C-alpha cells in the first residue's frame, strides 16, 4: 500500500502551523518592543521622518498600535474587524502590549475596557456593525465616566438581513454617545488617527474615549500607500494622574470616594447634578478641538476652496469624491471638496466659513439615512443649497459616475 501523501504537520488555510504550543514571536524582542523609545507626541505625529509602505488598513492600524504604547487590548471577532485585533494579538505576543485577551462578547469587551481605563492603563478595542450595537450601552457610559480609551470601528451593515458589507449607518448611533469620533478616509488616516486620538483623549481637559471609524473592506482589506515613521519610537505612557477624575486604584485620599455614585434620587439636586455632568462631558469634547487642529491639521480639509459646487464627505466617500473632483476638473468644471475628519466635535464653524460662497452642496454617503447631510444642515445657513446624496448602502460601492450626476448634471435623488 502506498504511503499517504498527507503531510504530518497540520496547517490552517493561511499556512500557519496548528499547534497547542504558543507560536514563537515573529520579531526578535530586542529589535522590537524592547528597542522602542518614548518620544514627544509632536515628534511622532508631525516631525519624525517617514517611509512609504503599501499596506492594508488593518495593517495600518496595527502599526499605529505598535507606536501607541498601549497597555491592554481586549478583542472579540467580527468581520471586517477581526484581522486588526488579530494583528494586535501578534503585537502582544511580541511584547508591545502588557495584556491582551479575547473576551466573551462585545458587551463584555466594552465593560472590561471601562474597568481597565478606570485602573489607569491605556486601552484598546475594536468592533464593527452589530458588535458596536451590542456594546453601545457600555460605550455610551464611557464618556460620563471620563474613561480615555481607543475604540476602532470598522463599519459594516447592521443586520437584518445578515450581511458583512460596508455601510456606515452605525456611526449615526455613535454620534450621540459623547465620544470623540474621527472618521478615517484611507489607510494613512487609519494609521494617524488612533495615535492622535490617544493623545487628545488623555489630555487633562478632555479625558474622554475616542472612536476612530473607517469604512470596512474598502479600507481595512485593501492596500494603500501609508507613510510610517520608524517602528522604534512610541508615545509616552498614559499619565492617568493628570486627568480630570481620580483613578479607581485606591491610591489617593480621600478614602471615602465613589466616583460613580448613583444620582437617581427624585429631587432637584440630583437632576441638576446629572444635567451639569452631561454638560461637562460634552464641553470636554469641545475642548479637544485645539488638540485635534494641531495634530490633524484642522478638523476639515478643503480642496478647491473657491468652487461654487462643493462636495462635503467623510470616510471612504472622500476618496471617491477626490476622484470625482479630478474627473470634473478634466471636463473643465470647478468642483470643491470638504473632507470632514472629526464628526465629534463637529466642525460647524469651519463648514459655515468654507461653504459660505457655495451655491450647491453635494453630500455623498455610504448609509441610507444620510446622517452627515443632517449634521451639515444643522449647522449651515441656507440649507436649500444642500443635496443629500448620492447615498449607497448595504455594501454597494459609489461609482464616480454617480457622483458626477449629482455634481454636474443636477441629479437630486
Amino acid at each position, binding site marked *: 500500500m502506498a504511503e499517504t501523501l498527507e503531510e504530518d504537520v497540520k496547517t490552517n488555510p493561511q499556512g500557519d502551523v496548528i499547534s497547542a504550543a504558543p507560536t514563537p514571536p515573529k520579531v526578535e524582542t530586542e529589535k522590537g518592543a524592547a528597542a522602542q523609545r518614548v518620544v514627544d507626541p509632536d515628534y511622532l505625529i508631525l516631525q519624525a521622518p517617514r517611509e512609504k509602505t503599501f499596506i492594508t488598513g488593518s495593517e495600518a492600524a496595527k502599526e499605529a498600535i505598535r507606536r501607541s504604547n498601549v497597555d491592554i487590548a481586549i478583542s472579540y471577532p467580527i468581520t471586517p474587524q477581526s484581522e486588526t485585533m488579530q494583528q494586535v494579538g501578534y503585537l502582544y505576543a511580541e511584547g508591545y502590549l502588557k495584556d491582551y485577551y479575547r473576551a466573551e462578547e462585545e458587551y*463584555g469587551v466594552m465593560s472590561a475596557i471601562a474597568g481597565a481605563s*478606570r485602573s489607569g*492603563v491605556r486601552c484598546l478595542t475594536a468592533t464593527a456593525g452589530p458588535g458596536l450595537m451590542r456594546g453601545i450601552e457600555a460605550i455610551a457610559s464611557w464618556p460620563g465616566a471620563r474613561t480615555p480609551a481607543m475604540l476602532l470601528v470598522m463599519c459594516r451593515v447592521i443586520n437584518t438581513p445578515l450581511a458583512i458589507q460596508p455601510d456606515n449607518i452605525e456611526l449615526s448611533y455613535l454620534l450621540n454617545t459623547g465620544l470623540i469620533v474621527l472618521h478615517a478616509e484611507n489607510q494613512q488616516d487609519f494609521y494617524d488617527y488612533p495615535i492622535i486620538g490617544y493623545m487628545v483623549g488623555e489630555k487633562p481637559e478632555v479625558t474622554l474615549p475616542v472612536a476612530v471609524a473607517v469604512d470596512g473592506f474598502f479600507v481595512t482589506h485593501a492596500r494603500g500607500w501609508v507613510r510610517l515613521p520608524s517602528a522604534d519610537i512610541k508615545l509616552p505612557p498614559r499619565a492617568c494622574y493628570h486627568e480630570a477624575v481620580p483613578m479607581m486604584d*485606591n491610591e489617593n485620599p480621600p478614602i471615602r470616594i465613589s466616583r460613580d*455614585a448613583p444620582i437617581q434620587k427624585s429631587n432637584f439636586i440630583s437632576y441638576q447634578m446629572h444635567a451639569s455632568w452631561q454638560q461637562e462631558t460634552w464641553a470636554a469634547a469641545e475642548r479637544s478641538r485645539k488638540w485635534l487642529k494641531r495634530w490633524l491639521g484642522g478638523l476639515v480639509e478643503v480642496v478647491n476652496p473657491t468652487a461654487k459646487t462643493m462636495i462635503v464627505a467623510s470616510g471612504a466617500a472622500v476618496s471617491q469624491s477626490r476622484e470625482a473632483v479630478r474627473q470634473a476638473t478634466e471636463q473643465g468644471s470647478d468642483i470643491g471638496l470638504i473632507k470632514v475628519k472629526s464628526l465629534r466635535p463637529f466642525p460647524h464653524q469651519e463648514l459655515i466659513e468654507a461653504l459660505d460662497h457655495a451655491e450647491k452642496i453635494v453630500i455623498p454617503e455610504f448609509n441610507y439615512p444620510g446622517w452627515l447631510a443632517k449634521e451639515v444642515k444643522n449647522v449651515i445657513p441656507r440649507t436649500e443649497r444642500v443635496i443629500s446624496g448620492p447615498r449607497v448602502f448595504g455594501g454597494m460601492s459609489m461609482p464616480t459616475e454617480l457622483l458626477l450626476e449629482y455634481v454636474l448634471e443636477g441629479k437630486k435623488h
Partner: protein
Amino acid sequence: MSLATVRVSPGFEQYLPQEYYDLVKDSQFVSPRKVSEMGSFKELIEEHPMCAGCAMTLFIRTMYVALPSPENTVFVGTAGCGRLVLSQGAVPFIYGNYGDTNAVASGLKRGLGIRFADKPKDVIVAAGDGGLADIGFSMVMHSWFRKEKFTTVMLDNEVYGNTGGQESGMTQKGMVLKMAPNGKKFEKMDMIGLAKTAGVAYIARVVPTNPNRVAATIQKAVLIAREIGPTFVQAYTSCNIEYAIPTPKVMDDAREVENARYQFTEYFSDDAKEYWDNIVVEKRKIKGSATVE
C-alpha cells in the same frame, strides 16, 4: 495606598469633617478590627438608606470589617439594593451598567495588575442575584472560565428588590412574585454547581446568622482570589419587604432558611486548599487583616 497617606496632617484635625476624622483615627485604616468589636469603632460604612431590618446591610457591614486590606481594595457593583450601601462605604466603588460587573472587574483587575505588579490590589464584585445570575450571567461565567483573580459576592435576596419585587433566576420555584403571577416555573439556579464546573478556586454559601463565619468566608475568598484564582461567595440576604418578613423576625427567617436549604458549605480547589492550609498552619500574620475565625 499606604495607610500613611490618610493620616491627618498636624494642625488640620479641626478642619476635617468629624466623620472623616473618625475614619482615619479609629477604624480599620488604623488597625485590624474584629467582628465582635462592631459598634465600638468607626466602620467603613455607617449611614445608608437601606430598609430597617435588612439582612443584606448586616452582611455588607460584616464584609467590610473582614476586608484583609481595605486600603487596597476596590468594589464593583451594579444596579440593586447592595450598591446603596457600597456607594457610601469608605472603599472605592465602581457603579457600572446593568450586569456588567464581572467584565468591568476583569479589566480593572488586569489594569491594576499592570500598574501595581508588586502590590496586591483586591477587586471584589458585590452584586445581587439578578445582576449576577440573570443579566450578568455570561460575564460572571466567563470571568470564572478565564480564571480572573477577583472575588464575586452574590447578595442573594432571591428577588429583584430594588425594582419592586420581580422574580429572578435565584428565586425559589413556585414563589409568586411580580412577573411570576402564577408562581415561578423553574428551579433556583445552581450557581454553586456552575462555579465548580467553571473551576472557581474557592466557593462558599453562607447566611449572616453567624457574623464571624461571614467574616472568615470573605477573608478566604479575598485572599485566595489574590493568589490563586476566582472565588465566589453566595450569601442569603433576605428581602424583608418583598417577602413580607417582619423586621424583628429577619434573623429567625435566616436561621430557618439556613437549616432548610441554605446550609453553610465551602469548597476549595486543590491549589486553594494548599494555599489556605499554609496560612492557617503557619499562622501567618496577614498585615492589616481582621482576625480569622
